[in-house]
């Protein structure tokens, strides 16, 4: 909400500069978001006397004037206004003055222009005689502003205006009002806090509230049927108003706080709302059928045209205002077109009501219609502020729109306000805040913002605090403690010199430790960590909800949000793959030859599983690795080489060893729309992820310039498997030497090596410590359709192995290879 400091000054002479005021407001919980100086100090604009005004010799519409501004010689000024005449007192912008003039393209916008001595159609002009809009006083540009004859020649114009009670400058302070401060959504509300902080009195405009009844109750009747939703309805009538523009001062204030002036009646209702926080509505009284107003709920599904000429479908239970025949307004949100004040209106009926906050909020949400009124009602307006506001508006209408007040006031008040009384224990304040605030000080602070404080009859350390009607948010002792703390000043709470740390044992957080370990590992081996968006287009999410990847493996549907920002972000990612592919494509198209990326992130699927925490959704964490393009870059000693699957496989192996897990097993998997080829990654029997080259179609779609090699690992499963191994266990180092043996066998060329390695490990038994593949050969020496694989075996035990032991193992291994894979030992 924006407040004008000029306007605020009507209610409190706080004596603070704009900056001091902003600081005070911010530090009492009314956060100032911006401070804008508006208007122009009009330095250089002085009062002049038009000595003569002759028609311009070369232009029909211009006049050449001699203007006395109190200097030795009169100024020569060319003026285009039709109303300029000799003898007038006018405001003259002298050479060097900067004014903010309405832009030619957009009159709402102002651009700074500095006056220069110029020749206009051959005549010298030494300044400008100003119109109201040029001075920022109003939008009027019908002619120059003519001042009264008493104005003193040569006097600064700003000083003249100040005498008239008008300021040419103002400051607009934008305050972020938190939902717990319905009392502060008005100038008087802000003034109340300023008063408490500065110990200066508030000066409210004097309003004589009439007694209920009187003539108005003969002219209009009000019936509240929905009493639970409308606790009070006040009505006042003003007759014979003239619908015209508001006076300049009011327009200036409304513009300063960001409102657009309409006509004097509508402007007054807005003005009073921003003055005291009570929304008002003005009906054209002659349009109200049967001179009657009824407050009752809408018939759900019916339509209603609001005063912005939009037809709206009403939600169930929306509270409406009716006249004798039809709906005339959505209560607390917006009035109807059928009864609004128009240029033909002469009699006005002013409504000031208290509506139930939840009901207003539900309707406003359902209608997607938030107005200044609904904003205040849904936070809770002053339960006792209606009569003051209605009468204040009526007084202004009498004064500014030439109306006459119909005596009396309608005041339907089915649910009277009862002020809550809350006990406040002074020691509890100290227990929560941690500062020794004197008990009397607490009482003083609360009293300053309108709370009633008296000693409790029951307890010497307790105050009975009466909550004022404008603080519906205060319901409990803790709410009072907050008020005391806020006004005492958080900055005045002393910090203890020592920190208390409870004697308890923090948990281990295994997942987190392992994640951080892998982050270090992967960044250490040349991978860059990324963070990508969790939200994707639905179509992309569905395509990557693939059984080759951990998320898709759950077999559930894609999770969609009901209210996405755009269709580009309609679904939650089932895999980190699309995000990383996009990053890879982006970087390859920005000159990166080597792309090595990893990301940790949650993926989502709609299906209940044993990992489900909420609803029917499974959320799991995966680790994605991607490499594309160069693995080894340009170097003087070796050649450039693109990454291949085995590069990434080596990294996956490192991930497993860093987690303390045995080396993973790899199993071929089938091609799919997503996968050109690749393998499943298994730890023992458990599926942990896959390692694949993405299909060419996918690579093209994401603008990859090289093969996309990716591995997505089910990190949740990995962490679970690794959890037991997080603490390494020492095994004694064998003092005996190990023995190395090589074994070359010839097998069918199509025979994969993986199962053979597994067979060797299995048949090798305990003595076999390690096995590797050190050579692969296909060619004339082994015959057509065959290949030779050479394995290096390392054997060891906690004793020195004899040849006999070693030979036995080798024989077992060879026999197993022969049997299972039709392998022939190479000579």
């Amino acid at each position, binding site marked *: 909400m924006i407040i004008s400091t000029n306007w605020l000054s009507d209610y409190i002479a706080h004596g603070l500069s704009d900056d001091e005021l902003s600081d005070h407001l911010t*530090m009492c919980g009314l*956060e100032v978001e911006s401070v804008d100086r508006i208007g122009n100090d009009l330095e250089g604009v002085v009062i002049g006397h038009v000595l003569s005004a002759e028609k311009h010799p070369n232009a029909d519409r211009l006049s050449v004037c001699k203007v006395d501004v109190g200097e030795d010689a009169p100024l020569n000024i060319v003026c285009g206004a039709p109303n300029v005449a000799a003898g007038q007192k006018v405001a003259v912008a002298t050479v060097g003055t900067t004014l903010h003039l309405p832009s030619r393209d957009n009159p709402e916008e102002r651009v700074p222009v500095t006056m220069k001595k110029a020749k206009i159609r051959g005549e010298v002009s030494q300044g400008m005689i100003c119109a109201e809009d040029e001075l920022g006083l109003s939008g009027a540009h019908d002619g120059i502003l003519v001042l009264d004859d008493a104005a003193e020649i040569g006097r600064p114009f700003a000083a003249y205006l100040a005498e008239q009670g008008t300021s040419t400058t103002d400051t607009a302070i934008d305050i972020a009002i938190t*939902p717990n401060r319905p009392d502060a959504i008005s100038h008087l509300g802000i003034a109340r806090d300023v008063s408490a902080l500065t110990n200066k009195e508030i000066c409210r405009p004097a309003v004589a509230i009439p007694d209920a009844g009187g003539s108005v109750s003969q002219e209009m009747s009000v019936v509240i049927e929905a009493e639970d939703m409308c606790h009070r309805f006040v009505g006042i009538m003003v007759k014979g108003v003239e619908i015209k523009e508001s006076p300049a001062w009011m327009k200036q204030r409304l513009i300063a706080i960001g409102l657009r002036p309409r006509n004097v009646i509508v402007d007054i209702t807005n003005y009073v709302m921003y003055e005291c926080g009570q929304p008002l509505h003005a009906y054209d009284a002659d349009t109200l059928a049967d001179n009657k107003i009824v407050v009752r709920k809408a018939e759900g599904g019916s339509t209603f045209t609001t005063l912005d000429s939009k037809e709206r479908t009403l939600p169930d239970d929306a509270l409406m205002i009716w006249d004798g025949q039809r709906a005339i307004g959505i209560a607390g949100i917006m009035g109807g077109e059928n009864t609004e004040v128009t240029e033909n209106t002469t009699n006005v009926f002013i409504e000031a009501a208290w509506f139930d906050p939840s009901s207003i*909020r*539900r309707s406003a949400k359902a209608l997607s219609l938030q107005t200044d009124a609904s904003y205040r009602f849904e936070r809770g307006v002053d339960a006792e502020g209606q009569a003051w506001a209605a009468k204040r508006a009526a007084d202004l209408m009498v004064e500014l729109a030439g109306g006459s007040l119909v005596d009396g006031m309608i005041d339907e008040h089915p649910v009277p306000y009862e002020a809550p009384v809350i006990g406040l224990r002074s020691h509890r304040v100290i227990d*929560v*805040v941690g*500062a020794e605030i004197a008990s009397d000080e607490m009482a003083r602070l609360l009293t300053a913002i309108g709370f009633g404080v008296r000693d409790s009859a029951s307890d010497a350390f307790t105050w009975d605090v009466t909550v004022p009607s404008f603080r519906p948010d205060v319901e409990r002792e*803790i*709410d009072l*403690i*907050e008020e005391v*703390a*806020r006004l005492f000043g*958080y*900055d005045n*709470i*002393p*910090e*203890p010199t020592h*920190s*208390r*740390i*409870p004697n*308890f044992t*923090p*948990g281990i*957080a295994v997942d*987190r430790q392992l994640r951080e370990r892998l*982050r270090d590992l992967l*960044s*250490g*081996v*040349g*991978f*860059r*960590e990324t*963070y990508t968006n*969790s*939200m994707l287009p639905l179509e992309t999410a569905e395509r990557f909800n693939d059984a080759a990847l951990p998320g898709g493996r759950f077999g559930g549907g894609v*999770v*969609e*949000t*009901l*209210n996405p*920002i755009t269709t580009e*972000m309609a679904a939650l990612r089932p895999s980190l793959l699309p995000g990383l592919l996009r990053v890879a494509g*982006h970087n390859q198209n*920005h000159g*990166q030859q080597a792309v090595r*990326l990893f990301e940790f*992130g*949650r993926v989502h699927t709609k299906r209940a599983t044993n990992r489900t*925490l*909420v*609803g029917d*959704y499974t959320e799991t964490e995966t680790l994605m690795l991607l490499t594309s393009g160069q693995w080894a870059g340009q*170097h*003087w000693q*070796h050649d450039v080489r693109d990454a291949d699957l085995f590069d990434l496989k080596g990294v996956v192996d490192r991930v497993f060893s860093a987690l303390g897990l045995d080396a993973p097993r790899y199993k071929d998997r089938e091609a799919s729309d997503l996968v050109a080829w690749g393998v499943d990654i298994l730890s023992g029997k458990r599926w942990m992820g896959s390692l694949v080259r993405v299909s060419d179609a996918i690579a093209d779609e994401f603008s990859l310039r090289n093969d996309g090699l990716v591995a997505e690992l089910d990190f949740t499963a990995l962490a679970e498997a690794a959890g037991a191994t997080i603490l390494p266990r020492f095994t004694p180092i064998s003092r005996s030497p190990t023995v190395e043996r090589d074994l070359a066998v010839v097998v069918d060329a199509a025979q994969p090596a993986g199962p053979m390695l597994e067979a060797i490990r299995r048949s090798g038994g305990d003595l076999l410590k390690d096995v590797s593949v050190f050579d692969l050969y296909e060619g004339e020496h082994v015959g057509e359709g065959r290949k030779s694989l050479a394995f290096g075996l390392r054997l060891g035990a906690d004793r020195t192995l004899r040849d006999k032991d070693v030979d036995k193992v080798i024989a077992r291994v060879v026999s197993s290879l022969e049997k299972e894979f039709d392998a022939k030992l190479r000579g």
Partner: protein
Amino acid sequence: MDQTSQPGAAAAHQALEDLKADIEGAVLDTADAIDAYRIRYLSRKQGQITALMKRIPEVAPEDRKAFGQAINAAKQTVEERLEAATAALAGSAATSAAPADLTLPGRLQPEGSLHPITQAQRLITRVFENYGFDVAEGPEIEDDWHNFSALNFPPDHPARDMQDTFFIEDAEQDHGGILLRTHTSPVQIRVMEEVMKDGEPPIRVIVPGRVYRNEAISYKSYCLFHQVEGLYVDEGVTMADLKQILHAFARTLFGEDVRMRFRPSFFPFTEPSAEVDIWWKDENLPGGGRWMEILGCGMVDPNVLEGVGIDSEKYTGYAFGMGIERIAMLRFGIDDIRILYENDVRFLEQFS
């Protein structure tokens, strides 16, 4: 003199002198040369020293002793030279194998990096872990209860508008709706529920994690970001304790002389609530800087404690939450949040 005039004697003496000269003069700069030298002089079968020994009888008897000693001296010279040459060769092996150009670039290990969000998160969590906080995590898809209701957001209350929410399932009669969590605070509830199953406070935990907001994307806001949440519930916890821990945090991240201020604010789940600003020096600004909000905090609302079965008269607590991106942007001087999610390598490599 007769003896010296023996015909073989002069030749033997001459052979000794030649041998000595050869022994002194031979060039021993390679392993092969050294081997050949050893064989030429010391070999038992063909060595010249052995051969010369055999010629002692040719020398006059009275000279034989001196002749023998001279041969031994020569032999000693051979051995000394062999030793020196072997040592010299070993010492010069590296030198002789030196690459022609030592200024050529080395074989580079590829450079990796941790994302600045991870780096900022580590900075933040490390501070609180040092102060004895546990670390917990929770789900990103949450229910209305944990994200709102249990945190004292009443239904139909404007406080719910403070956090624009992505909904996944609307509220129905049997459950309260499912959504993407808008903050990490629901994990407070999960942690307290867990503790209260079979225990009591103290609870002292921080919660890092990803959260979602349905807001227009701009340089200062993204549809998701990361938070670190903190919660301490115990007997006798006060707002003064909260100020102290957060001041300690700010000093660690922003320097010993950091200026910070607590200003009143509103969050449904804390009361009193505050926002914390630090003074950000910037000589280009009037006043030499400005206040920058870094986190929100407050004393845990009694409704929240009671909602999970904690006696709010006996226990009090504080909670705080901060945006990791915001801290990262402040610390690293990043002015557009979107660049964090673009992952351009030219950006990432600045954090290597």
